[in-house]
C-alpha cells in the first residue's frame, strides 16, 4: 500500500472515529432544533427538519436562561479573579526555587487538588453557615470553589513560569528593578500566554460549576446555569428539544473558545498535568 493511500485510509478512519465520538454533541444541536413531535419519532430523525428556532425563544422567555447565565458569569469571573490574583504569585515562587520548603508547599498544593468537591462541600457549608457567609450565597460559592481551582491553576501556571529563564529576571534586577518590578515587567509578560490559558480553563470550570452552587445557593434568582438546567429538567422532562436548546446555549461559548484556542489549551493542560 502506498504512503498516500495509507494516509487517506487513516484520515478516513480518524474522521469516522471523531464522528462517532462527537455524535452526542451533534444530537444535542439537532434535538434543539426539532419539534416536540419529531423528538419522539420512531425511528429517530437523524437529520433536522425545518429548524425550530422557537425552542431557543422558549428557553429565553420561559427558562430565564439569561439570568442563569448571568449568574454563571458572575461566579466564573469571581472565581477566576480570586484564583489568578492569589494563585499566580504562588505559582511563580514554586517555579523559581527548588528546596525542601518548596517541595513541601508543592506537595500540599497537589494534595489539595484531589479533594472531591462533593465531599468538601459538607464541612464548608456547615462552617459557612456558622459564620454567616450563607447570607451571600454567590460570594460564598466563589470563595469555596476558588479553593478547588487554585491548586489546579497553580500547577498549570507553575509550568508556564518555568519556561521563563531565571537569568532574565536576574538581568532585570541588575538593571535596576526591584523584585516586584522584575515580576511585573519581565516575568509576567513572558509567562502571559500560559497564564491566560490557565485562567481561561479556570473560567470554564467556574462557568460549569455545579456542586457548590447546588449546595449553597438556595435562592432561584442567584443560581447559575448548571442549576438552571436541572430546575428546568425536572418539571419539563418531556421537553427535550427545549432542554437541548438550553444545553446548546450554555455550552456553545465554551466550545467556541475551545475550538479557537485548541492548541494552546491542549499544550497548557499537558504541560501541567504530568510535571
Amino acid at each position, binding site marked *: 500500500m502506498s504512503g498516500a493511500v495509507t494516509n487517506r485510509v487513516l*484520515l478516513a478512519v480518524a*474522521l469516522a472515529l*471523531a464522528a462517532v465520538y*462527537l455524535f452526542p*454533541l451533534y*444530537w*444535542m444541536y439537532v434535538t434543539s432544533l426539532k419539534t416536540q413531535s419529531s*423528538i*419522539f419519532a*420512531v*425511528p*429517530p430523525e437523524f437529520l433536522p427538519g425545518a429548524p425550530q428556532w422557537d425552542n431557543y425563544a422558549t428557553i429565553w422567555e420561559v427558562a430565564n436562561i439569561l439570568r442563569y447565565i448571568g449568574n454563571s458569569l458572575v461566579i466564573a469571573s469571581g472565581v477566576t479573579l480570586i484564583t489568578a490574583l*492569589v494563585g499566580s504569585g*504562588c505559582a*511563580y*515562587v514554586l517555579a*523559581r526555587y527548588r528546596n525542601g520548603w518548596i517541595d513541601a*508547599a508543592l*506537595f500540599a498544593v497537589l*494534595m*489539595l487538588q*484531589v*479533594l*472531591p468537591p*462533593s*465531599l*468538601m*462541600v*459538607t*464541612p*464548608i*457549608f*456547615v*462552617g459557612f453557615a*456558622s459564620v454567616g457567609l450563607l447570607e451571600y450565597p454567590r460570594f460564598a460559592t466563589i470563595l469555596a470553589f*476558588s*479553593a*478547588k481551582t*487554585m491548586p489546579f491553576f497553580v500547577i498549570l501556571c507553575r509550568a508556564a513560569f518555568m519556561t521563563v529563564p531565571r537569568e532574565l529576571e536576574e538581568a532585570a534586577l541588575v538593571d535596576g528593578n*526591584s*523584585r516586584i518590578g522584575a515580576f511585573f515587567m519581565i516575568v509576567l509578560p513572558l509567562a502571559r500566554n500560559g497564564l491566560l490559558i490557565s485562567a481561561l480553563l479556570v473560567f470554564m470550570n467556574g462557568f*460549569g460549576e*455545579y*456542586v457548590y452552587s*447546588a449546595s449553597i445557593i438556595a435562592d432561584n434568582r442567584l443560581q447559575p446555569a*448548571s442549576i438552571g*438546567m436541572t430546575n428546568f*429538567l425536572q418539571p419539563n422532562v418531556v421537553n*427535550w428539544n427545549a432542554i*437541548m436548546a438550553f*444545553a446548546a446555549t450554555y455550552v456553545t461559548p*465554551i*466550545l467556541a473558545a475551545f475550538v479557537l484556542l*485548541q*492548541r494552546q489549551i*491542549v499544550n497548557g*493542560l*499537558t504541560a501541567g498535568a*504530568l*510535571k
Partner: protein
Amino acid sequence: MTRILRSLRDGIGFDVLLVIIALSYLLVFAGLPLIYNVIISFQTVDVFSLGTLWHPNAGFDNYRAIFDDPLAGRVLWQTIVFTLGSVALQFTFGFALALFFHQNFTGATWIRGLFLAAWVMPGLVVGVLWNWLLSGDFGVINHLLESLGLIEDPVFWRSNVETSLYAVLIANIWYGTPFNMILLAVGLAAIPGDLYEAAELDGANAFQRFWTITLPMMRATIGAVLALGIIFTLQQFDLFAAITQGGPAGSSTVAQYWSWQLSFREFDFGRGAVISVLMIIVVLFVSLIYVRSTKAETQL
C-alpha cells in the same frame, strides 16, 4: 520594620509573602474544612443546630449509623465498580486512540484535538445530554442498539436498578476518555523515534515493538494516568446528579454522591461528614502513592 519592607522589595520576603497569601487562602478554605469535617463527623448537625460553630456531641453514633446502614455495602460495591470500570475503560479507549493518532497522517493532531471538546464541557451538561441519549422509549442509543440487533426491547437505562449505574458509567467513560488519550499521547510522543528504528533494524515486528519498547517506556505515564483516573473518577458528581440522582432505590449511588445526599437532601451533616472523612482518606492515600511515584520518576 524597614528590614521587612526591604526584604519584601528586594529579598526573599517577596517570595515568602506570595506563597503565604496563597497557602493561607487554601488553609482557610480547604485545610480548615478538612479538620472541621472530622469534628462534625462526631457531632449531631441538623437544620436546628446548623448556624453555630459547635454542635451537640454524637460520639461514634454517626459512624455506627453509616456502618449499620443497609445501603453502605451496596454503595461501597457500586463505588468500586464505577471507579474501576471507568478507569479501565477510559484508559483502554484512551490508549487505543492515542496509539491510532500517533501514526503520522494528515490532520492527526487536529482531529485528535476535537475529542477534547467533550472534556471542556460542564459535567452537568454532559450528564443531561446522556440522560437524553439513554432515555428508554425515545433514546437514540436504544434505537441504534436495536437496529444493530444487540437488544430486542428498549433498555430503561436510568430507571432500571440493574442498569442505572451503567448509565452513569457509560457517560463517564465518554467524558473521561479524551483526557486519558491526550496524556498517553504526550507519553508516546516522548519516546525517541530512533528506538523504534533500532528495533526495526533488529528485526522486531510491530507487535514486538509495542511490547518491548512502547509499554516499558510508557510505564511512568501509564501509572500517572491510572492514578489520575482514580482521583478524577472519585470526584465525579455532576453526572450522577444529571442522570440518575443515585436512584432508583440507591442502585446508582456512589460514596461521594451518598455523602452529599445525606447532607443536602436529608440534612444530616454529621453522617454526610462521616462518608466524606472516609472517602477523603482514600483519595489522599491514592494521591500520595501517585505523588511519591512521580517524584521517584523525575529524580531518575
